[in-house]
């Protein structure tokens, strides 16, 4: 066991494993690329409808059910199904089928939590804002989104971490990313490489988690820092004069 861990440390200390297109840096960058692309795409598709439906507090159950298909179908199956279509459309082997699977995986948490976050904003606030003469879209942008912001960012964070962990599947369809260390290591029974690959993916997932947490602390106002709804109401009643 100690020998094995020693081998793993030695693997990380070998500079040849870091550089080059197949090195740790290259593969990490590929992994970040496909994870970020899929998460951002899913956010762009999930958030607007979720916010709109959440504001109207309608259609949620059906939408959530539809969106959960992305979670129900295993990502691996999505890749296998998308692959022949991707080849036939001339879109290549690895990137687009994997993107589709990661997109489908990232969508449900972002949609569901955003919808719930918006829909569950204190109705008193929404009523007060309406009473002040704010338009529906003003209510959404000035009241609901800021109040629900922590929930929304958390949803994106959860999706992003899941996507990073699952992007290893790209290696099964001849693409890159950190999954290459795991798949190629397994093919030649190099357990050190497999383990190192696993560590790298876990490390990247944790880094994603911490990165989002730091972002949240810095940029996202937490409702927990406000003591009562009255304080929030006070903020809201002030807002239109600044508008």
């Amino acid at each position, binding site marked *: 066991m100690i020998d094995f861990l020693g081998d793993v440390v030695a693997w990380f200390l070998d500079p040849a494993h870091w550089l080059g297109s197949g090195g740790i840096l290259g593969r990490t960058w590929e992994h970040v690329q496909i994870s970020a692309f899929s998460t951002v795409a899913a956010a762009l598709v999930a958030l607007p409808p979720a916010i709109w439906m959440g504001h109207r507090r309608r259609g949620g159950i059906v939408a959530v059910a539809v969106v959960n298909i992305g979670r129900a179908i295993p990502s691996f199956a999505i890749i296998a199904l998308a*692959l022949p279509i991707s*080849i036939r459309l001339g879109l290549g*082997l690895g990137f687009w089928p994997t993107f589709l699977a990661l997109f489908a995986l990232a969508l449900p948490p972002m949609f569901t939590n955003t919808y719930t976050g918006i829909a569950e904003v204190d109705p008193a606030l929404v009523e007060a804002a309406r009473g002040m003469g704010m338009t529906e879209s003003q209510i959404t942008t000035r009241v609901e989104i800021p109040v629900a912001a922590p929930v929304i960012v958390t949803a994106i964070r959860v999706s992003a971490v899941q996507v990073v962990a699952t992007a290893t599947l790209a*290696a099964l369809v*001849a693409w890159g990313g950190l999954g290459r260390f795991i798949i*190629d290591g*397994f*093919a030649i*029974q190099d357990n050190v490489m497999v383990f190192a690959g696993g560590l790298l993916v876990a490390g990247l997932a944790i880094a994603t988690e911490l990165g989002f947490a730091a972002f949240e602390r810095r940029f996202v106002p937490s409702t927990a820092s406000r003591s009562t709804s009255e304080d929030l109401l006070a903020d809201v009643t002030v807002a239109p004069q600044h508008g």
Partner: protein
Amino acid sequence: MRNYLRKSAIGAVLLSVALVAAACGSGDGAGAKEGPTITVGSANFSENALLAEIYAQALENAGYRVQRNLNVGNREVYFAALESGDLSLVPEYVGTVTTFLGGSASSDSDATYQTLLGLLGDKGLTAASYASAQDKNGIVVRKDTADEFGLSKVSDLAQYNGQFIFGGPPECPNREFCLIGLQDVYGLQFADFKPLDVGGPLTVAALEGDEIQVALLFTSDGVIAAKGFVLLDDDKGLQPAENVTPVLRKDIVDAYGDDLIAVLDAVSAKMTTEELTALNKRVGFDGEDPDAVATDWLAANVG
């Protein structure tokens, strides 16, 4: 009095039924073999799983207790299982397995087989007779590629170094009969290598869709003929003899003796390359169920 007679009559009938049932139960047919269960395993591609199923059914027909553990993985995985006793028997290919064990293989099936036996002995393993059926690594291109670049043999690829993308199993860059040999023996350089699967649907789809121009498939795979691919001639003899050879644990042979080997040999005697290719086509292309195909083939050829 009548009650007592009736009860003893019933008792006697029940006793005789029980005795007959016990006698029938233990007899279980003439072939029931006492001994360790034979765990038949295979590599993770359909031809090997089919061969394993055929040997497994042949053993079952002869009365041996058989368990299957197919599609275990690639050679590093299943050979370790064979050595540890988790598997008892695996259908191997004489050239590649000899090289895997550190020996040297050639196109001489007999000589390679003898070398193999020596290497297996050190590990508590042995081999039954090899079949005439061979399945070698095949370097394959599409027909339009072959026509456009005038390719008929592997050495023709050397003129186009750096132009083609090669696709094969992920372990290919580490294999003497794959990329290493293509580079050392043929001097080939590919533009890129795509790690796909072991001569399976992923590789075929990639070749058809021109994601790769040169692929590693298997010579007994019906898909080559079915898709109109061109199998390039191995003119420098990189690929050694690859006769199908059942490799098994010595302790299994010791437990059952020569009868066991005879069952395996009877199957191998009828397994030619033509038979194997036809079997692959039925399972891989016509979509027939491997278990049914195995039963069919055994009934028709071994009886």
